């Protein structure tokens, strides 16, 4: 492998911040979920890169990636369920308009 580790980390960092920007900027709940997925994937990339580079014998990093898969899947499922049930009692998906839980 010729590509240095730093490159992978840089890509994952960029992707991570794109995801964060997505979460902060977009107002549609589903797009926020997608951006969160992007962030998770960025971490996956970094984890695998480190795992391949430093612990390729027992792939400790990749184990975490497996768990991130589990968590991501669960998160999307529950996230969508929440969005849909919120949508059901107020016909909007715009995050700023769902304000019933105001303090």
């Amino acid at each position, binding site marked *: *492998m*010729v*590509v*240095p*580790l*730093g*490159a*992978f*980390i*840089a*890509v994952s*960092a*960029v*992707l991570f*911040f*794109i*995801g964060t920007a*997505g979460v902060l*900027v*977009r*107002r*549609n709940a*589903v*797009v926020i*979920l997608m*951006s969160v997925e*992007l962030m998770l*994937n960025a971490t*996956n*990339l970094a984890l*695998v*890169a480190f*795992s*391949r*580079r430093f612990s*390729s*014998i*027992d*792939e*400790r990093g*990749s*184990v975490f*990636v*497996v768990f991130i898969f*589990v*968590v*991501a*899947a*669960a*998160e999307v*499922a*529950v996230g*969508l*369920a929440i*969005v*849909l*049930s919120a949508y*059901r009692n107020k016909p909007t*998906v*715009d995050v700023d308009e769902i304000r019933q839980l105001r303090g």
Partner: protein
Amino acid sequence: MFDLIEPALFALLTIAIVAAGAGVVLANRITTSALLMAFTFLNIAGMFVLLGAETVAMFQVLIYVGAITVLILYGVMFTPQSPRPYGLFFQTQKYWAALFVVPIAIFVALVAFSFRDSATVGAKGGDLLPLATSVFRDFAFPFEVASVLLLAAMVGAIVLVKRDED
């Protein structure tokens, strides 16, 4: 000859990932951003293959592209396509945001690139065997806990969305 292809592939994949990622955030229509997201996942799987972690790549595609994207697409289909185009263009604090983000970005880039040591060393036999052993032997218990988590999420999601047959 091989050492030329990989950087090229890496560059290609990076461009694809960053472009698709930005696309997901900037796209006006949600369906476009959903599919761009799927495309990013595919590219990241490519990155994994590039890193020599085939199993993880396979799982990545199987889980992210196969299941999560479809789930998100379901979500997209159920929620209304809002007429007003969303996007960055109506934000007023653009400059404030930039001011805030740029120094942090530089800082992160510095940290990221500080890992300048040698390239990643791909184990010969791919990562199936080591990954499988460590997941099912050393991390067996967390694996069980993860399965319980999944079950809980599944039940939770079903209960949340179940419409009482009124």
